[in-house]
Every structure is written in C-alpha cells, then in structure tokens.
C-alpha cells in the first residue's frame, strides 16, 4: 500500500519537474495544434479556419528562425519572404519535374538555403542596421523577379501547382500534411530553444551587444553572423516547403515585401527574444485579420483597414513594450496582484476602522 503511494508521489514529482522543463510548453503547443485538427475533422471548427491556422503555424516557423536573426544576432533582414518563396518553388520544381521525392527536395532546398544564407551573411559583415535591411530587401525583390521570368522552372506569373504529395507510395491527405507541419514545428522550436541556451546563442547575443567584447572573448564575428543567417534561411526555406506541400500552389506575388514586413511585425510585436512571443505575434498579425476581423462588417467593406490596425499595434508596442506583448502578460499579472491587494486593504479599513 505504502509502496504504491510513494510511486504515485514520484510520478507526480516527475511531472512537476517536467512542467518546468522548456520542452513542456512545446509539447503542449503541439498538443493544441493537433487538437485543432481533430476539432476541424469533427466539424466543430470550420475547415477554412483550420487552413488559416495551418498557414499561421508555417509563418510562425519562419518567425522562429527570424528571432535568432533579429533578437539574438541583432541583424535586421527584409528578405525572408524571398527565401520562403525559394522553398515553395523547390518543392514545385522537384515534384513536377523529378517525381514525388521529398528527400531530394529537402536536400536541394537546404543546399540552396545555405548558399543564399552565406551570401547574405558575407554582405552583413560590411553593412549593418537599416542598410542591411535595404540590401536584403533588394535581394528578395531579385528573387521575386526570378520567379516571374524564369518560366521553364517557376511557371512565370501563374506560378506552380502540384498534385497531392505522395510519401512512400501513399497519397497524403491535407490532414496528414498538417501533422508533418506540426512535427516540423516541434523540431524547429526545440532546435531554437537549444541554440538559445548554448554557447552558440550566447555568442550571437554577445555580438549583438558588443562586437569588441565578443572578439576579445574569442568569438569570430564572421563565423557567427554567417551561421545565424544560414540557420534563419534554412528555417525560412523549410517553411516555404511546408507551405507548398500544404497549399499545393505558389505564385510570385505572394513573396513580396508585404510578407517580409508582416513577419518582422509578428516578431517585433510578440517579443523578439521569446518563442512564445513569436507565436503570439504571428497569431495577431496573420490570424486577427483573417479569423476575427473578416467577420466584422466594417472590415468586410474596407478590407485594407486591418493594415491600419496592424500599423497602430506596431506603434503602440514599440512605444510602450519594446520587449513585445509577451512582456505585457508579466506586467499584467503584477498589476492584478497589486490591485487585489489594494482592494483587500481598503475593505479591511472599511470594516474594522483604521488602526
């Protein structure tokens, strides 16, 4: 009897210690994502809402790579959309011209990402801040032009469409692709959390804070800037590949500056140093518009008004919460605690009089 009790206790203790582990939140998030798909299948959630959420998860994956760049290495880039586009076209090209081969597509995509990331990384050694953003923007626009005019590979303005993807002879339904997406989300989240808590993450932060201190401590600025750009680009390309396998269509217009700016906004609004901040930011930027505002009559009539809302949100967050909305939750809990204590005190005074 006693033995049973103690074993239960240790199980509980183990669970408690696991809740403090950084991976607990990640698995919880994956569980919620799977739950959304299950709800969509059972008809409680609309299929269109599940689609929108799936696309948000894809942008969140890309945003996670972008946090390393912006929040940790302190490099502003506006070329993200172009890299996502590259991923989507790689899948389109490989599937249409070489048959359904996931592995070839994956390897090709990662190799392309490493090449692109290295190019941008070398540029970033000479140029910093706003100028780097402008140059990456230019690179992204070049990529969009390539998508438009390299017709034999990219299909020109009409883009590329693929059939349902096949995996080991099995045709994948949309729901199954969703699970692949969740799997990649977990992998990317865990990698980002691991990188942040490792010497690599600390090296990135030290380069952002003080280049000379980093060099004096033996951190090679070249190596880590290149590395950050390559990681971020690889994650963006993986996001593009997931986008293509899920939506099965891509056109050049989708990968313009607007998407890059939206991802930047999502990371800045949510909190550029927290993976949960990125999730929150992408839900706000991509989800608020399509899931909530589209149901309100005013926004149906004036479709672009949601952009104004996003802009106002960015201004407010940058002015009052430079650390992102994720900081707001902490402040909010402190505030409520303070208020509740004040209420209790004033009630005591009313009931018992001043001491």
């Amino acid at each position, binding site marked *: 009897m006693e033995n049973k009790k103690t074993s239960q206790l240790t199980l509980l203790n183990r669970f408690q210690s696991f809740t403090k582990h950084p991976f607990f939140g990640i698995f919880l998030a994956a569980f919620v994502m799977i739950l959304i798909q299950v709800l969509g299948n059972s008809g409680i959630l609309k299929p269109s809402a599940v689609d929108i959420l799936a696309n948000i998860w894809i942008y969140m994956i890309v945003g996670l790579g972008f946090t390393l760049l912006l929040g940790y290495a302190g490099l502003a880039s506006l070329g993200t959309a172009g890299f996502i586009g590259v991923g989507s076209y790689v899948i389109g090209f490989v599937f249409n011209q070489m048959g359904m081969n996931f592995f070839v597509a994956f390897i090709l995509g990662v190799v392309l990402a490493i090449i692109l990331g290295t190019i941008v990384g070398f540029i970033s050694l000479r140029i910093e801040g706003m100028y780097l953003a402008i140059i990456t923007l230019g690179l992204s626009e070049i990529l969009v032009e390539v998508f438009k005019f390299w017709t034999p590979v990219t299909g020109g303005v009409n883009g590329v469409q693929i059939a349902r993807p096949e995996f080991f002879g099995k045709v994948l339904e949309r729901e199954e692709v969703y699970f692949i997406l969740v799997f990649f989300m977990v992998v990317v989240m865990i990698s980002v959390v691991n990188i942040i808590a490792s010497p690599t993450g600390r090296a990135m932060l030290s380069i952002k804070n003080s280049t000379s*201190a980093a060099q004096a401590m033996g951190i*090679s600025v070249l190596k880590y800037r290149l590395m950050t750009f390559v990681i971020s680009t690889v994650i963006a390309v993986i996001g593009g590949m997931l986008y293509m396998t899920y939506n099965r269509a891509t056109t050049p217009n989708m990968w313009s500056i607007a998407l890059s700016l939206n991802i930047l906004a999502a990371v800045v609004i949510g909190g550029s140093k927290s993976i949960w901040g990125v999730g929150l930011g992408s839900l706000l930027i991509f989800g608020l518009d399509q899931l909530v505002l589209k149901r309100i009559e005013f926004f149906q009539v004036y479709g672009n008004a949601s952009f104004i809302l996003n802009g106002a949100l960015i201004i407010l967050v940058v002015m009052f919460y430079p650390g992102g909305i994720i900081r707001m939750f902490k402040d909010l809990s402190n505030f409520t605690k303070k208020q509740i204590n004040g209420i209790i005190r004033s009630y005591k005074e009313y009931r018992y009089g001043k001491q």
Partner: protein
Amino acid sequence: MANNKANTLNNRYNHQIEQLKYKMRYQTQYVDVIKEKLDQKRIKELKKMGQSHQKELYALELETLSDLSYLEIFEAPLIKKLDEKLVWQQRAIAQSLKRGLSKNPSAKEELLAKAQLQKDLALKKNNEKKELVHQKFSARSKTEIQLRGSLIAYEAEKARLNKLHEEKNQALLLENEKIIAEQKSKTDISNKQLKEKIESIVKQKSTLNITDTQHEMNDDVILSLRDLTMKFGGLVAVDHLSFDVKAGEVFGLIGPNGAGKTTVFNCITQFYKATSGTVIYKDRNLDNVLLNDFKVHNVIKEGIVRTFQNVELIWELSILDNLLVGAHTLYHTNFFSHLVHTRRYKREEEILRARAIKILTDLDLILYKDWYPLGLPYGILKLVELARTLMTNPRLIILDEPAAGLNDIETEKLVHTIRKIQKDYKCTIFLVEHDMDLVMEICDTICAISFGKKLAIGTPKEIQSNKLVQEAYLGGE
C-alpha cells in the same frame, strides 16, 4: 622556405599537444563534477529518509509530553486565536456604530444599545468556543509512570532510526566511492595513454630544430614590443615604442591624456594592426610567437585576455552567462552538438559552470550570480569583467583603466582583487591607469609614455623622480 615548413609543422604539433592536454584536463575535472553530483544526490536521499522518519517520531514524541506542556503547545494557540478574533469582532462593531452615528445622530441610544447587544453576543459565543477547546484537551491526562514509559519508547525508537540513517549514509558513501574510483581508474588509464601520445609528439617536435633568432626573448619575459608604430593617416599615435613585460609582474603603462596608451593595448590584442614593428609573446609551450600574425578572436587562445575602458559586458545575459561567454574558446563541441544538446556538451557546460561559480565565489561576486548587469553598481561590473577574463586560465591579463569611475572604497577592493588574482591565478597583469596612487601602489614596473614615445621605464620610485615624466605631466619649465 624550409624554415616556414618547419614552423607550420611546429604549429600543428603545438595544436595537437594543446588538444590532448585539454582532453586530460577535461577528464580530470569531470571526476570532480561527478563527485559533487553524487554528494548532492546522497544528501537529498538522506533528507528524504529523515523526513519520513520524522513523521513517525512525532507521534511518539506527543506521548512523552506532560499535561502542562501539552496544554501550552496545543490549547494556548487556539485560545489566542479566539481572543484575536474577538478583538477584530469588537473593532468591526465599533466601526459600524461610528458609521451609524455619523449617518443618523438622532438615534444614538438605540444604536448604542444594539452595539452593546452585539458585543455581548460575540463575547458569549467566544466563551462557548473556548470552553469547547478546553474540554477537548483536558480529556487527556497521564500519570508520571506512563510518561516515563513513553519517553523510554521514544528514545529507543529515535536511536533505532538514527542508526538506520547512519547505516544508509555509510552505504551510500561506499557506493559513491566505488563509482568515483571506477571513473578515476578509467580516466587514469586514458590519461596515461594521452601522456604517452604527448611525449611522442614532443619527441617529434624536438627533431624539427627551428632556428629563429629574430624573435628571441629573455627567459623571464612574457611580452615584448619592438619598435611598435601605429599611424592613423598622418597622426602618429605610437612612435617606435619598445619595452619588455616580465612574467608574473604587474606592469603599468602611464601617460597624459592622448599619449596612445589604449592604442598600444589595441595593437597588442590585434584590434588594430600595427603599421610597423612587432609584438612577441611567449606562449604556453614557451615558444616565441609573433602576435602580429594573429586574428583578433584568436589572441585569447594564446592566454591573453583584455578588459575595456568602459565596461563591455553582455547586457542581455546574466552574470554567470557572461562568464561562460568568457569561456567560449574552451568549448570543444561544435554547433550540431549545441543543436541537440548532446551528453558531451552537457558535461562540458557543467564543468565550465562549476569553474565560473568557483571564480565568482573567489571574487565575492556569488551573490550576483543570476543578476543582469544592467543596474548593478559600476564597481561590481568592473569586477565581473575581471572575473570573465579569468575563465580561460589566462597568462597575461590586460586591464584598460580598471579604476576609471570607481570611488575610493571600490578602488581599494579592486587593488585587493588584482593582488589576489596575481597570486592565486599566477598571471602577469599589464594595466593602463590614470589613478597614480593605485599605479604606484600595485605596479612592480612602470613605463611612462607621451605622444607615443617612451619617456622612462623603471620602478615606481624611479618614475616618480624622473624629470621627463614630471615635465610631461605638469608642463615644462
């Protein structure tokens, strides 16, 4: 040409020796980490056991209490609580009476009577409760013989449990010792192999016989500048400067504002590439190396660490993580093991974390372990920067104005710390400072420069009495 080839071979051997030595150090340090971990585990287990025993003991201990102390321990607090409650009730009644009077002063007597009634009721209820409590506890009464018997039982049980505790402790200690001995024997064997490897490499190295007359230095010199010149366009910041720094001493570089002291530092640590002249350094293998050939981020690997004039800490990392940034070159795991947190990486992290904590305790900074640098006093930040330099077991620490912006007490503490570092960590310290009291107090040798040119070099007394130096500071004539 042949010499060049020999040099590259020599460098390669040095690198191999360094790697092997690192491996040996790593293995020996890991034994300590395991020891500490096992100790913590043992203490935790014993504590757990003690807690479960304590519960059993409490029941027996209750029996040994005499009636009086039993009442005192269990009844008195309840009574006290009830008393307190009565006070609160009375205060509430008084307050409501006050409010009623201010609202409706005409019905004064009525309200007073009501309040009195309420007070009486509260008192009555309170007394009833007290009676109940008293009844509950007075049911227990024990004779002296009973008490003595239970005391004996309690003592016996206590002794038995203590014995169990001790036995468990011994068993755990034995087990831990076994594990540690196993690990030690393993590391001893592999260390022996590594030593043999190192010896063979050293033998190979000795056959190379490099003849390098250009960079020869005296045996006790660790750093030597020869005709160092640094020009920014037309401005000559450092002009044919040459001096030697002896191993183990505190060397001070002084000069009026704009004399080019910081430029000298930057030339040594390769932040600036010198226009001409050489910087020669004696590395861990007692070979003379030319620092001019090194990249900025490789200088630290030779054991030269610097601090900055205005504190350059990583503001977004805690103090402990800042120290780990200082140990960046000691990590031998690559990016992919950081990506998946392999066991090897975790071990490395543990070892370096233990070292960081040791250094922080040495410098009395352990209190600020998890703090962020932003908002800490300047004196502490300077000390943290000093602690960060110690992470890599440096041979030469270069301090750029360590006392700038500190008050007298902080400066005193800094002097103490620098002395301690010099003694405990056996490093050479090379510093630039404007605070003459500090320089004269701690430096063994001082070099005075002005407009990039050397004025004098010698002991503090010699420098103080030197005419050229006085002129440079106070103006000529």
